[in-house]
């Protein structure tokens, strides 16, 4: 190419090489040091994330859902939304067995008098 008329300044390559070698101290290599730390940073991150997840999982597994955790208002609101969806006996301590047994002991008169007294409640 030089023979075709493309020239260069005198001693260009000697001075240029010297100048190029001076790039090194001027331009630091930030990635060089950081890249050595990447595996350690990644390992530390994995350990920290694991440690933070394990207690959360344990606590959620141990603490099942109990009705005692619910407020009365929450239960009432739920039943008001759809009172037929669930058997109230599941929530309320009705002692059904006792009440079934006790109905056998009632005579017809007692039942009629009870209904007469409470008939207005169902209107």
């Amino acid at each position, binding site marked *: 190419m030089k023979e075709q008329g493309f020239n260069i300044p005198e001693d260009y390559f000697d001075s*240029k090489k010297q100048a190029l070698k001076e790039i090194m101290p001027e331009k630091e290599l930030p990635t060089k040091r950081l890249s050595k730390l990447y595996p350690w940073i990644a390992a530390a991150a994995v350990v920290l994330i694991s440690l933070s997840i394990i207690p959360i999982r344990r606590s959620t597994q141990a603490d099942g859902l109990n009705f005692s955790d619910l407020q009365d208002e929450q239960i009432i609101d739920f039943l008001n939304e759809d009172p037929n969806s669930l058997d109230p006996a599941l929530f309320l301590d009705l002692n059904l067995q006792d009440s079934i047994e006790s109905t056998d002991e009632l005579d017809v008169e007692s039942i009629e008098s009870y209904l007469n007294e409470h008939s207005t409640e169902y209107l």
Partner: protein
Amino acid sequence: MDIWIMAEPPIWKEQLKKQQFDRLFPILVDAFTERLYWHIRSILLRHDWTDDVLQECYIKTWKALPNFRGESSFYTWMYRIATNEALALLKKERRFQLQDGPLDFKLNADPYFDGDAALQKLMMQVSELPDKQQTVFKLKYFQNMPFKEMSELLDTSIGALKASYHHANEKIKEGLNLKDIG
């Protein structure tokens, strides 16, 4: 020995592996500066542009050394950086000159160009080609670079490069009213 397949001393890759960049970099400067200069100059033609791009090429090489895995030769890797930088400068100059047409290399204003009128005329014709065709033509005309090497540098298939060269050749011959280009 063919300059395109020059074997590189194995110690270079060892130094890279051991991250001895401070030792390796000056070796690369001594080994490649002349070749890279003429490679860049064959694309950019002007000395001042070539000087800037050569500097930028070595800055990029220094910064990228820690991330270079050594899968290709240093020569291929650095030639690729130099080629990309040279093509980027062509784009920048075209934007700077605010024109879509041929880039004016202003060879007359370059004190380090004293080519004859025929070469100037040829370069004027070449500058009217699209960037890709222009680059392929220059690499072939000035460096007689094999298409295989060019394919690695420009990340283009050999078939596409041959087609680009053929089109470039035809356009230049037509522009200069020539039968063939020497």
